């Protein structure tokens, strides 16, 4: 008993204040990417598009280059070009959005997730029960979802918890590419969640197929499952997920991600 109490005192209080008390992320952390080009005007840069090793840079409207955060693997090689012209990673962990379209911008400045409408917010704002459905992933995103439950991030203090049955849940957290073998179980789980229900898509695989995008096993999220929150990352940092969830629940001040 003495040992137990001593250890408890030694361990101390480890939970971070959030929002506001985030620990500093290391210098090499690769957060939300930015596309900048001072020569040919922001987002028109053809060189950056050519050099990009993944699907991060895509053709947008009017032949302009677009950054697709959903396809970003946050690999160091995705930072292409020079300081004045190209893609670079910022230290900003905030990047969750309400729609898939919002992930695609000409600069990487995304419109962060908006709060739910008043009625839904009243239902879920202070208590949200989620069911995790893993549908063709590598277990990276799941590792970070598990980490959200530890004493540092302590998701439960915000009234958000993962539950064991879809019938007890207010929504699902979806990770993975949605492959052929999991499409049907995913649909069945979604059907079992009572209305109104939320869908939160976590990670690059859910948004774009991630590193597996060229595989014939990728089916993608079916149209019958509308997504309310997209959280980019490979995998997303726990703070990225936490930030997205709290924005959706209207528990953060709404503001667009500023530069750095």
């Amino acid at each position, binding site marked *: 008993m003495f*040992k*137990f109490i*001593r*250890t408890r005192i*030694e*361990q101390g209080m480890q939970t971070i204040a959030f929002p506001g008390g985030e620990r500093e*992320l*290391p210098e*090499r*952390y*690769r957060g939300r990417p930015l596309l900048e080009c001072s020569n040919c005007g922001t987002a028109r840069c053809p060189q950056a598009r050519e050099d990009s*090793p*993944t699907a991060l840079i895509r053709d947008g409207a009017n032949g302009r280059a677009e950054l697709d955060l959903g396809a970003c*693997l*946050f*690999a*160091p*090689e995705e930072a292409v070009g020079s300081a004045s012209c190209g893609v670079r*990673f910022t230290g900003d962990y905030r990047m969750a959005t309400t729609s898939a379209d919002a992930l695609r911008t000409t600069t990487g400045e995304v419109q962060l997730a908006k709060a739910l409408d008043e009625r839904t917010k009243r239902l879920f704002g202070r208590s949200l029960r989620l*069911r*995790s*459905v*893993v*549908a*063709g*992933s*590598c*277990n*990276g*995103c*799941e*590792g*970070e*979802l598990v*980490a959200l*439950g*530890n*004493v*540092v991030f302590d998701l439960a203090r915000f009234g958000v918890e*993962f539950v*064991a*049955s*879809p019938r007890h849940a207010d929504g699902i957290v979806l990770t993975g*590419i949605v*492959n*052929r*073998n*999991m499409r049907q*179980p995913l649909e069945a*789980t979604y059907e079992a969640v009572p209305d109104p229900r939320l869908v939160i898509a976590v990670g690059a695989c859910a948004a774009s197929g*991630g*590193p*597996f995008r060229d*595989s*014939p*096993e*990728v089916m993608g999220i079916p149209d019958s499952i509308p997504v309310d929150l997209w959280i980019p990352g*490979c*995998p997303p*940092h726990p703070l990225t997920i936490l930030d997205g969830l709290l924005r959706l629940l209207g528990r953060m001040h709404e503001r667009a991600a500023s530069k750095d």
Partner: protein
Amino acid sequence: MSDWSLAPLGNRRAISLGAVSVQAVAEFRSSVIGAIRVGWRIVALFGVPEGADHVLLIAVLANDERGSLGALSTLVGNHYQALTPECAQASLFERELAEQCGVTPEGHPWLKPVRRHATDQAPNAWLVPERTREEYPFHRIEGEEVHEVAVGPVHAGIIEPGHFRFHAHGEEVLFLEIMLGYQHRGVERLLETQDRLRGTLVSESIAGDTVIAHASAFCGALEALARSHKSARAQSIRGIALELERLANHIGDLGAIAGDVAYQPGAAYFGRLRGECLNMLMTISGNRYGRGLVRPGGVAFDITPDMKTDIDRRVKRLEDELQPVAELFFGTASVQSRLEDVGVVTRDACLTRGFVGPVARACDVHRDVRFNHPYGVFRFAQIPVATAWAGDVFARALVRWVEIQRSLEFVREQLAALPRGELRSACGSLRPNELVVALEEGWRGEVAHIVLTGDDGAVRRHKVVDPSFHNWEALALAMPGNQISDFPLCNKSFNLSYAGHDL
């Protein structure tokens, strides 16, 4: 090595494909079966399409005691006499072969799909009918009061998908059948790409908690085929990252085991300390799982002098914080009594079935790639093999704790004497018609990447064997005789990868 005409291989030493003898099927069978009988084990057994109408069957075997690796092959049509009836280790490999290549191992007693996908490594001329993915012949046990409990694919926590079917009599499990494949993403075909970077990124996503081990084995195979030599510094940084990955996962596992026996202090403290290891990987690589660090030819990031001091300080603190928590966990009688004699894997079963990693070491089998088939930094800095003998949940937890202490020691030693050298050396085009086996001791056990190149030097086949592929059967063997309610605890003590198995 002249026995059974095994072509001698080394870990990460490429050899000409011509050096691997192509034996007649009968000879191949007796060679493999004979070698397994005297202590060799199967690292991989897989097929490569050869011409329009044949499959080249390659067996890679290891003898851990002698530190040797060997390969042999045979050419088969769309059926051959299965090895499994005389060699249990071949069972899952032959099922996989049937599924990937469309070859029927005749006489296989348990021929079922492994991952439920369409044939993707069959010779062009073959028309292999696609199975319905739902079609799966489950094992059945009949009898009064015998009942089935089916769990999954969607589980009660944040867990990967898999289906478990228990046959139970009351609470007692008689038999457990594990059906996987829900995480199948077609990894092997994606790794066969010409685009080196794309391949590396996929290798980092084979199992998201084993990023460093899989990426290192992937790069190790390519480096051997390109005769690229890494600097001592790059090797040391890879070693540090590998051990940090082991630390994060072993510590996390101890926390999860504590959680499953309802010992909350252990779950909370170990859970947080897992995060500290991930954060150290993030300091080095910019990602909590070490993504972006390991690249063909070396590593993408250096450990700067400032970083070295900082990480050394953090590892020291981690060491100090872990000690009392582990004492608390292993010293609490109620915890001990929940872990002992639960989920036993016998040494005999381990040797016959070829289990790897902490699962094997917990039943007194000295099997550790870092020691038996040393590579990279582990040729110079040896980590003693940690073993226990009981083969139960407690033994698996204990092996993890001993390995945690040795990894901490290793990381601090390496940081203190980080050698000089380039971060990345050139890794050019691959030599044609060669075979290489790259083994890595990931935290779950032996990660194997086997690569064959074609006439043009392009990758012809990239075979991946995750330790979970060997070890899922250990869980199925450990359950009978235990209560269904002990399944979560047993499962946690193995903590196998669904993604790594399903590829």
